[in-house]
């Protein structure tokens, strides 16, 4: 059988030729699947809507030589409220980019798919909260096997209440071991917030009362972790900040 079925999020679309697209989809099997959607950039194409970014859809692909071709598509959720709100769009762009950069073609990261799905549904139904987005990214890193140490020094394994975060070492590095490494400085408040973010649900993190400076420092830490994980290839993160700044200005 040369037909295969996948359910997943559209995380990237790249124009191909006159009216085709190469679409990247993060599937429920936890893999990144690429396929060609023929004619999907034409205004009357039956695939045009289903291969739009952020869509959760069921795709039937025909495998031939090279990339498979899209034969059928059915939208499960288009996340319309996310598309209509530009702050939510900013976050969703960043989510799509993370999936594209961090998930491999044979990754099998089903837990990551469930995590992304949970966040997209949360983003659809609730207001955008920057701290919840940080919680999503921190937990995403953990789900991908990059859970960072926040209680003990990653080098000497002693309990520590401050130091710096060195991602290549595995997280917190205590002041005694710090001379051997670099990283972003953290104190007891930052570590407590990171620990909270790693275990709370998105609904709980929406309600967290955190002062502005602490939240900004925490966002910087998560940005830094993502920068390290993606080897500095992220582009959408900068736009999310631009969207947030514009929101602040308009308020």
């Amino acid at each position, binding site marked *: 059988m040369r037909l295969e079925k996948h359910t997943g999020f559209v995380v*990237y679309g790249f124009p*191909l*030729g*006159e009216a085709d697209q190469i679409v990247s989809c993060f599937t429920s099997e936890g893999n990144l699947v690429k396929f060609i959607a023929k004619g999907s950039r034409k*205004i*009357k194409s*039956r695939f045009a*809507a*289903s291969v*739009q*970014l*952020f*869509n959760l859809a069921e795709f039937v692909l025909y495998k031939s030589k090279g990339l498979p071709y899209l034969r059928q598509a059915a*939208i499960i959720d*288009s996340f*319309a409220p996310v*598309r*209509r709100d*530009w702050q939510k*769009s*900013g976050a969703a*762009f*960043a989510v*799509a*980019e993370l999936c*594209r950069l961090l998930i491999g073609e044979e990754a099998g990261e089903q837990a990551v798919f469930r995590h992304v799905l949970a966040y997209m549904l949360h983003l659809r139904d609730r207001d955008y909260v920057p701290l919840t987005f940080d919680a999503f990214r921190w937990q995403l890193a953990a789900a991908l096997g990059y859970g960072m140490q926040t209680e003990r020094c990653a080098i000497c394994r002693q309990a520590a209440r401050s130091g710096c975060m060195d991602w290549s070492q595995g997280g917190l590095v205590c002041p005694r071991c710090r001379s051997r490494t670099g990283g972003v400085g953290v104190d007891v408040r930052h570590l407590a917030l990171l620990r909270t973010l790693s275990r709370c649900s998105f609904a709980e993190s929406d309600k967290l009362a955190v002062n502005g400076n602490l939240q900004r420092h925490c966002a910087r830490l998560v940005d830094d972790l993502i920068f390290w994980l993606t080897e500095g290839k992220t*582009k*959408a993160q*900068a*736009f*999310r900040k*631009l969207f947030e700044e*514009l929101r602040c200005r*308009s308020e």
Partner: protein
Amino acid sequence: MRYYDSLARLIAQFQKLPGIGSKTAQRLAFYILKMPEPEVREFAAALVEARAKLLTCSVCGNMTDSDPCHICSDPRRERKYICVVQEPRDVLALERTNEYRGQYHVLNGAISPLDGIGPDELNIKSLLARIRQEKPEEIIVATNPNVQGEATAMYLAQILKPFDIRVTRLALGLPVGGDLEYADEMTLARALEGRKKI
């Protein structure tokens, strides 16, 4: 197989075009070689002339051979409407309708965070300057009906708020001549949203 240098160079030049691979480049190169020499000269001259003569309109950003372009300099066009489009070919598409008699503004792209294209890469600053100067009554955002086009439209709506100007978006919905049963739910939802009284 190794080609003569001049042929290899021609193939390499064709390969630079979007969507042209090595096979198509070879086919085009051999087709050119079979054409009569005057036609080849005319073809080459047209390429060079277009590149040399076409410039960007300093008012709207459209492609033109005179600055300002024929639309911006036409006194019969209505000054109270500016239609914002992504590409110069979108101007051609809208002109084909013969329905719109206002001005245009070409952004030369759309906000696409995944490709690193932000507002600074687009022709937005000149749009703001133009609005301050010309004081139009309405801005019609005619970006593509995809996520990037929507993000651009939302961004424009946000930054145009202080101007106290009417900002509208092209209607989204069913294409003319299609059957309703084949329409997807996203398009149908947009069509329902944008329904109007008859």
